[in-house]
């Protein structure tokens, strides 16, 4: 637990650095927020007043500090376009995205780990080739392609699932599969290659020499060792799914954070964009923290060092 605290504190500088980066990057892109907000025909006086109200007349560094202190108070500013606090906009959209990401991850883990195990056990036999073929397809096909394909087959042709989101869990099934497809592919490949390696290890012979069944050897001895890198990958993927959701949410019209980000980009809504990017960053940081924690739960060698 102490090491977790240490890790958390160690993340503060990373977090501030990332925010600085986002802040600077968003300032570099062209487009004056005041103009975006007001449209064309306003007097210079109005523009000046608004600029002042938004602190845009202050030096960039001071703007950053103001923003930073806002963030630590849970205030991400006002959305220019929606005229609402960014925090509450994100909080409204977040549940949809979290549910989507969780469903997609669950899909990716079950399918990925399951097919990885089968492929490793049936190494170089038909199931191995089939699963690895699918996983390669999973990795290489972009999200929008698999999304459209799924929509075509399951909504349009078979009429099993809704074409776009209606707020129900059922309507999130297709988006979850589309989003999880990629991860499933890479989880499957990583599981397979690690399990194949683990099955070559000396301790596998020891386990077999005890008279353990193949099943016990695989699940009791090999799998645990081969899961270490897979868990890291999974935790990182869970967080990157939050950002991967941008495309999926647009295609399936899901009112989540991804859609919020798309809208923010289209309307040059800086505070909103900043907020969504920030959220994704936090997710990624926590994802890797989660990976480390899980890792040390499974691997005693790391646990003792920490």
């Amino acid at each position, binding site marked *: 637990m102490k090491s977790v605290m240490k890790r958390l504190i160690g993340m503060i500088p990373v977090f501030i650095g990332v925010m600085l980066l986002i802040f600077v990057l968003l300032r570099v892109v062209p487009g004056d927020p005041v103009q975006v907000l007001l449209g064309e025909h306003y007097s210079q006086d109005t523009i000046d007043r608004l600029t002042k109200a938004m602190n845009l007349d202050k030096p960039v560094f001071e703007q950053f500090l103001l923003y930073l202190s806002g963030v630590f108070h849970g205030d991400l500013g006002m959305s220019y376009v929606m005229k609402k606090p960014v925090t509450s906009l994100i909080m409204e959209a977040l549940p949809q995205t979290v549910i989507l990401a969780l469903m997609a991850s669950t899909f990716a883990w079950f399918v990925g780990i399951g097919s990885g195990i089968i492929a490793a056990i049936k190494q170089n036999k038909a199931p191995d080739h089939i699963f690895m073929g699918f996983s390669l397809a999973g990795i290489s096909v972009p999200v929008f392609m698999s999304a459209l394909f799924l929509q075509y087959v399951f909504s349009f042709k078979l009429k099993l699932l809704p074409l776009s989101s209606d707020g129900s869990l059922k309507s999130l099934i297709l988006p979850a599969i589309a989003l999880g497809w990629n991860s499933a592919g890479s989880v499957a490949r990583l599981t397979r290659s690690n399990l194949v390696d683990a099955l070559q*290890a*000396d*301790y596998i*012979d*020891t*386990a*077999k*020499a*005890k*008279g*353990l*069944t193949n099943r*016990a050897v695989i699940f*009791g*001895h090999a799998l*645990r*060792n081969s899961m270490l890198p897979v868990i890291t990958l999974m935790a990182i993927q869970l967080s990157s799914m939050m950002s991967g959701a941008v495309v999926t949410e647009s295609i399936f019209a899901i009112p989540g954070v991804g859609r919020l980000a798309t809208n923010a980009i289209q309307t040059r809504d800086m505070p909103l964009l900043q907020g969504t990017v920030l959220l994704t960053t936090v997710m990624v940081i926590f994802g890797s923290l989660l990976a480390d924690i899980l890792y040390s739960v*499974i*691997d*005693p*060698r790391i646990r*003792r060092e920490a």
Partner: protein
Amino acid sequence: MSSDYLLEIEDLHTSIYTDDGVLRAVNGVNLRIPKGTIVGLVGESGCGKSMTARSIMRLLRHPARIDSGRILFGGKDLTTLTDKEMREISGRDISMIFQEPMTSLNPVLKVGFQVEETLRVHGLAASKEEAKRKVIEMFERVGIPEAEKRYSAYPHELSGGLRQRVMIAMAMILKPKLLIADEPTTALDVTIEAQILRLMRDLCKESGMSVLIITHNLGVVAEICEYVYVMYAGYIVEHAPIFDLFDYPRHPYTKGLMASIPRIGGNPEYLYTIPGVVPNLLHLPEGCPFSLRCSAAEEECRKTLPELVRTDEDHFSRCVKACGEQSLEGRAYGAGRE
């Protein structure tokens, strides 16, 4: 068959089907282990010792497999058992200690659990507490200090010597009839080696277990074996009771091995080594496999493989020069070659 022998290997051929061709790792090996004795199998690196052991335990990995031969254990041919039947014997009647104590234990499981697993697989742990007690008892017997604490240690927290003791505890906890130890002390330093060997000998005497100890170190053999098989390039080239072998080695290869044991006070400059290397088992020479390195080799040696001939009571050598009387007809010695 006489029942004095616990294990009888008859004309075993094991090959590895590599991409480059068929590698004949075990060539018609005949080997017998009497009940309650420690038998050694020696030879240089790469001559097929581990392949022999793995053939017995059915731990050969693709692309290696047994081509022919019988491995009789208590009258049952291990090569024809079903996987299930073999699993029942593995760990309970025959167990194995491996060369590398560093990698032979699962790094993510507690050593106590790993030893206990042997009990559990064979349904010999009545309760959790009883199993744990048995494991700790065994740890104490093999000389693991603070056994109770070590029960919940992970392999990386133990030294090489302790890990090998854990392996021994694991292999011995069910009092198997046969223990196969594949270079159990190669990875350990000399003092630990002596301790481990003594431990194995004592445990063997106590429980009447037979041991097949595989090593390339004649010192180890001298320490604990009663009978020795010498292996070269997949062939058994000589076998004899320990004192016979050390006093009257018959085969030039055995003589070479003896001569290359360093002696205290000997001049290291003059340390003998057998010239040449073990031939590539993919391309075994015609005739005697040792003829390429043998100073006494003649024309004849390079043409035909000599039979294993009896030179003394219970002493056999596969060399035309061995002053033997009769070759063994009928038995499969050396006959299994294409």
